[in-house]
């Protein structure tokens, strides 16, 4: 059987993207969504579901699109996924739901992410009630189970927001503490506007406020309020502080001006809106030539942001394109936009001038070794392959580690050898009253996994509060 071609989403033309942080993907029109939805075979045994970390009833929500029943479709999505407008945009679909769609065998998979986004955007634009029918009745009925119960959520990334939402729906009173001046975690300080408009995150947060969740910003838990105080004041805690501490390669010259971690670069650009300097006060140094080190989503986001700030950008990655962990769509976008890729290379020294400013980078070439026992081919340095490239700015996007800010003040909380919090299958930590989830438990992962962890922990917390 011949399959119809996959309907690709509308996008800003690459030339148009150069000087704007507007969203690149424009999504589907109603007609396009219908077309694409009709391609779904409505499999009896839908493999796609097994690829989704939260097990969304994918054929279900797609069927309702075909029927023109967007309201129903949205309710299905919402009952599994608290942030569909966000996941539709940022999930690595090619290795999750879409990666296991049966259509891969005979053609291109259903564009599940784009359909999910379409329905969620439609709902947001039409102010469709955020709660499923069941949940609306829960919110009014369930209170009696949890009268006077109070839970504190620490960190407002996807994990924390999910917990707040789920507990809020159960009628439990939730205070969510955030160290920064905006809520959303990586969704606001890391992922750029052109991939995830801030107003979408803002809207989700306003829904939560409507649920009665109390948002408290500017509170770095650990210092402004101690874990002990929280333990006294609340019936349970959820820790979702993320894995926000950047790693540096630590090569000579790392202290030079112009050497950034991707976190700093992206935080300046996204959270602090440095792309609008001097209207906004926070500056950014960009120069003419920017080198980004790494091959993940963070590297792509940094590279594409630097390009939009007017630089010529090269991504230096130590393996080859096929090993790059970034979403395929972002790699494709980066290439279309004119970003250069230098594979099998890595910096060894940053070279500065007398004022301490970066001027060039010494790199070496790498080659991939034979696969090791884990099956990964490790990059190894080719001796005497050094070469120098000019650069005004280098952005290291080589990963993050556990954010110790809270953990240092919370020594009783058991962590593993990498510094991440240890939990049981219900998200419960070594302190029974304390639950945790998201990147601070798993290490850097994805939005949908952080949300999934939030859901699990919510069930754990609900059980715990009943007993």
């Amino acid at each position, binding site marked *: 059987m011949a399959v119809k071609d996959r309907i690709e989403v509308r996008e800003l033309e690459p030339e148009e993207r150069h000087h704007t942080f507007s969203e690149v993907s424009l999504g589907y029109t109603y007609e396009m969504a219908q077309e694409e939805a009709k391609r779904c075979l409505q499999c009896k045994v839908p493999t796609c579901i097994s690829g989704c970390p939260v097990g969304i009833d994918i054929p279900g929500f797609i069927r309702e699109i075909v029927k023109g029943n967007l309201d129903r479709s949205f309710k299905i999505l919402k009952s599994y996924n608290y942030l569909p407008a966000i996941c539709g945009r940022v999930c690595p679909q090619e290795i999750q739901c879409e990666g296991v769609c049966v259509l891969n065998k005979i053609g291109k998979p259903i564009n599940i992410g784009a359909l999910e986004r379409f329905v969620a955007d439609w709902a947001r634009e039409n102010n469709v009630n955020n709660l499923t029918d069941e949940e609306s009745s829960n919110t009014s009925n369930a209170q009696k189970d949890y009268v006077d119960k109070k839970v504190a959520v620490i960190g407002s990334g996807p994990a924390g927001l999910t917990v707040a939402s789920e507990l809020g729906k159960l009628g439990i009173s939730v205070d969510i503490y955030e*160290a*920064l*001046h905006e809520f959303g975690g990586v969704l606001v*300080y890391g992922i750029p506007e052109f991939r995830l408009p801030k107003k979408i995150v803002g809207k989700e947060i306003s829904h939560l406020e409507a649920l009665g969740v109390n948002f408290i*910003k*500017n*509170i*770095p838990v650990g*210092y*402004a*309020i*101690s874990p002990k105080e929280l333990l006294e004041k609340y019936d349970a805690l959820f820790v979702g502080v993320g894995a*926000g*501490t*950047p790693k*540096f390669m*630590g090569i000579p010259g*790392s*202290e*030079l*001006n*112009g050497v*950034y*971690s991707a*976190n*700093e670069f992206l*935080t*300046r650009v996204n*959270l*602090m*809106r440095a792309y609008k*300097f*001097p*209207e*906004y*006060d*926070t*500056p*950014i*140094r960009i120069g003419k030539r920017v080198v980004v080190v790494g091959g993940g989503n963070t590297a792509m986001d940094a590279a594409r942001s630097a390009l939009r700030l007017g630089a010529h950008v090269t991504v230096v990655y130590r393996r080859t394109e096929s090993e790059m962990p970034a979403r395929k769509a972002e790699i494709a976008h980066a290439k279309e936009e004119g970003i250069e890729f230098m594979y099998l290379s890595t910096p060894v020294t940053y070279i500065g001038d007398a*004022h*301490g400013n970066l001027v060039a980078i010494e790199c070496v070439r790498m080659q991939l070794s034979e696969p090791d026992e884990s099956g990964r081919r490790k990059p190894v340095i080719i001796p005497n392959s050094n070469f120098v490239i000019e650069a005004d700015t280098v952005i290291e996007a080589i990963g993050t580690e556990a*954010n*110790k*800010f809270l953990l*240092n003040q919370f020594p009783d909380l058991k962590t593993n050898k990498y510094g991440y919090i240890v939990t049981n299958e219900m998200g419960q930590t070594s302190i029974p009253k304390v639950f945790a989830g998201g990147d601070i438990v798993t290490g850097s992962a994805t939005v949908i996994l952080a949300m999934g962890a939030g859901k699990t922990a919510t069930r754990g917390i609900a059980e715990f509060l009943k007993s």
Partner: protein
Amino acid sequence: MENPINEIVEKKRLCKGVYEFWINNEFVAKHAKPGQFVIVRNTEKGERIPLTIADVSGKQFRIVVKAIGKSTLELCMKNKGDVLHDVVGPLGKPSEIKYYGNTLIIGGGIGIAAIFPIAKALKSFNNRVNVIIGAKTVDELILKDEFTFADDLTTCTDDGSYGKKGSVVDVMKDKLRSEKFDVIWAIGPAVMMKYASLVAKEFDTPVWVSLNSIMIDGTGMCGGCRTVIKKDGESEIQYVCVDGPEFDGRYVDWESFIKRLSQYREQETLALESFIKQVGDISWL
């Protein structure tokens, strides 16, 4: 009626371009320890400005701000009754306050405000507290009447208009020649802290300095505040906002630290010029 959170409840001009504020924020006031700082934003579009907590009282805390660029200028133009857009804190590791014995506490310029709570706390731990404060000239010698608790207070000015003539580092050297100290705190402009650290090293005495590196989040998330600490032949990257802000100045790599302070010189000048154009004459400040 209660004051709103982050309201300026008191403002006082200490000298030209330097203001003291008391801000209402019970989270900060209740938890702040000497050596810690807050991060403040003036407006929705403002940058995050780190400032040392210079004292607390009830639900209020004190900051002393020197107007040197756009953001600090804008802050100094705020008045009693205004509410700051954001206040985050306390942040940073508190000073290691304990019994040491004979202590020497040095504040230069605006750094005098930063050493005030530290000196007070050391006194409460029965240390002998010797204080040196200094500034360019008598007008800039702030808080000079507040160190009445000190066992010994030496004041100095570069131009000799008050106290000894010379810098705090000159006075420090004299003191170290005649007396043994168990620990030193030296806080002020980067260059002063650098020289104070060199002197302390010469006399083999630990010296705490408070690094004012450029920061954003203040929670260890961006790495922008990082600095190089060199000890026993090894250099290590440390985050000033969470591993500091206080470090033993003998091990700070002052050269790279000072260079990193000028990262945004170009953009800062631009921001300041356009702000002054907007607000007009600021000579009254």
